């Protein structure tokens, strides 16, 4: 019995080792995905400069005190401060997760021992960045305001948040012993939610400026999830559509079609039209669902949505056809497309926002069509951009569509058209 079992096992092992797709799915795919996730997750856990939260800073005061505040912020390991103008608009259109505006009079308030005021603009869709920023901003503001103001701000803030008297006294005594936290990087692990009354105590005016007039967490999550899943499933769906070429090659129908007088480019073009149409239908269904269930603002700019979706569908169709023409068998196509699509989806932001990963990861991610598709959809759904605002994303996607379709055409001609 054992000998028979071994014979069966040996046969299956031999078949498995000769099955390149099975080997790819069993060993290469997990390694690739683990690498991508590992890179993304480790960046969220460490304090390396690569993972710093980008914060735009606009100083309308230009006083020694405002410059000191800037210096304090720049010394935070978890933050990357960029000096910019018109920072509100930058957060509004998704260029940065948050921005600080120092209004005129900030220095005078600090000098006079009054509570200084600054404005914090936030993109509520980027919650992780807000928590890191808040944890760093609190001690910085306190140090910038001076010990007396900081002590007062802490007291009011803790009162506003309902801390018991004992804890408030303990905090005050820390100021008396000048033990204000100095390591911003450490404090970044203690999120501080400005919404719980602390903002006013710190002299912060917090404005959530992205996501329309009434941004909701549901829409924020839904915008990303719907667009991410839509793009990933589109790639799977359209690779399968491209696979009909291989099916037809095996069944003989492709040869039969090739034996008709007007075959040639029109056959591949027909496949492209079919694939794009299926892709658009997929997107329409998923976005309608997202609009109904997750309040994703799909009708914000319908023309821009249609144009962007056509660009996404064309790029994904080109990708699918390109793969289909390059692969020799349907099984090979399934293995390769699964590996590529899952990797592209992880790198390109279909699974988690690229805002939370280091810059190098974002750069690599933008070698995938997912990232450009996601940028466009996020721009439309969350940042309220119009067609002009997502023009670069649309242009890149059409360029990807042209490149992949061109490759598919070259492969098609070499394989099916050229009489060899």
């Amino acid at each position: 019995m054992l000998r028979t079992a071994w014979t069966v096992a040996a046969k299956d092992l031999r078949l498995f080792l000769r099955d390149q797709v099975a080997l790819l799915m069993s060993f290469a795919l997990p390694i690739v995905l683990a690498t991508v996730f590992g890179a993304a997750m480790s960046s969220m856990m460490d304090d390396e400069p690569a993972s710093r939260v980008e914060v735009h800073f606009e100083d309308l005061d230009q006083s020694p005190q405002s410059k000191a505040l800037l210096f304090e912020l720049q010394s935070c390991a978890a933050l990357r401060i960029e000096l910019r103008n018109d920072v509100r608009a930058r957060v509004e259109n998704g260029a940065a997760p948050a921005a600080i505006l120092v209004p005129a009079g900030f220095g005078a308030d600090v000098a006079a021992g009054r509570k200084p005021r600054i404005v914090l603009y936030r993109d509520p869709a980027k919650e992780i960045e807000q928590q890191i920023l808040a944890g760093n901003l609190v001690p910085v503001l306190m140090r910038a305001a001076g010990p007396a103001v900081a002590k007062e701000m802490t007291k009011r803030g803790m009162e506003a948040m309902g801390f018991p008297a004992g804890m408030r006294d303990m905090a005050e005594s820390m100021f008396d012993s000048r033990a204000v936290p100095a390591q911003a990087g450490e404090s970044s692990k203690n999120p501080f939610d400005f919404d719980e009354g602390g903002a006013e105590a710190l002299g912060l005016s917090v404005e959530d400026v992205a996501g329309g007039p009434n941004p909701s967490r549901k829409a924020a999550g839904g915008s990303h999830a719907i667009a991410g899943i839509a793009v990933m499933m589109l790639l799977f769906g359209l690779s399968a559509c491209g696979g009909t070429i291989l099916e037809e090659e095996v069944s003989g129908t492709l040869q039969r079609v090739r034996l008709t007088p007007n075959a040639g480019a029109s056959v591949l073009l027909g496949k492209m039209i079919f694939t794009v149409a299926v892709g658009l239908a997929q997107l329409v269904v998923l976005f309608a669902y997202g609009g109904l269930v997750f309040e994703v603002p799909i009708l914000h700019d319908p023309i821009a949505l249609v144009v962007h979706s056509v660009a996404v569908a064309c790029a994904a169709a080109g990708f699918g056809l390109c793969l289909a023409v390059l692969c020799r068998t349907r099984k090979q196509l399934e293995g390769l497309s699964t590996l590529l699509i899952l990797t592209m989806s992880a790198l390109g932001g279909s699974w988690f926002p690229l805002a939370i990963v280091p810059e190098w990861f974002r750069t690599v991610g933008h070698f995938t069509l997912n990232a450009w598709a996601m940028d466009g959809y996020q721009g439309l759904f969350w940042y309220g951009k119009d067609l002009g605002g997502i023009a670069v994303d649309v242009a890149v996607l059409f360029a990807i569509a042209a490149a992949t379709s061109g490759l598919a055409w070259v492969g098609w001609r070499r394989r099916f058209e050229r009489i060899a």
Partner: protein
Amino acid sequence: MDSLPAIEVRDLVKRFGAARAVDGLSLAVRRGESLGFLGPNGAGKTTTIRILSTLVAPTSGSVSVLGLDPVRQSAALRGRIGVVPQEIALYDGLTARENLEFFGRMHGLERARLREAVDRALDEAELAERAQDRVQAYSGGMKRRLNLVAALLHDPELVFLDEPTVGIDPQSRNHVFELVDRLRAAGTTLVYTTHQLGEVERLCDRIVILDRGRTIAAGTFDELRRGIARASGARGKLEVGARATEALAALRAAGIEARLDEDLPDLEQVFLTLTGHALRDEDL
């Protein structure tokens, strides 16, 4: 123009790497002729047909099909030839009518001409009543018949049939024979490839036998077997009518070696006589 051969091939060579699939083949097929194209596996039949039907270019040699060059004038030639592939090259998810309409449109047929061609094809395949059924629900014989008529929608002048009767029951095979007979009667040139030698004997005017990429024999069935008989010193046939047994005894008495072979039907004739010629499309 019509006096030109339908197919004229001279010194055809096709190499795939170091291998010579076709090695100096020459042949000519007259218009309206039905040619049996025979040979063992790997003889070069498929490659030759792929060259003649515009799918593969020859390495060297000259090829003319219906007066056209299959490489340089492939589009024009494709409109005038039909290819019945060995595999069932149909879309399983479409109905018979949808399949025929699709291939008809790909051949440039539109509207009334398309409708007429599709109706005629369905009638010829005896599938008119099942025209709205998806092909996946068809029996093997039904698929074969549809596979054949799908290649005839555009009234080709020359039809290549690559083992059109593989895997079907004798009734459907007989139906395919009748379709081929109708094509022959209409003057269509046929190139018929099969391993069923009896089919060639029944359907073809002339036979070409290939081996290792070359023609090793060509002629009518009668010419070929006479040639073999002469080469091997084969025996003659004497028709003696009803008194065969007496004649046999007389021959043997005269010292002549003789044997009585009764003129019996072959197995297929027995089967069709017993089960009838009507098509059986039900898969139970």
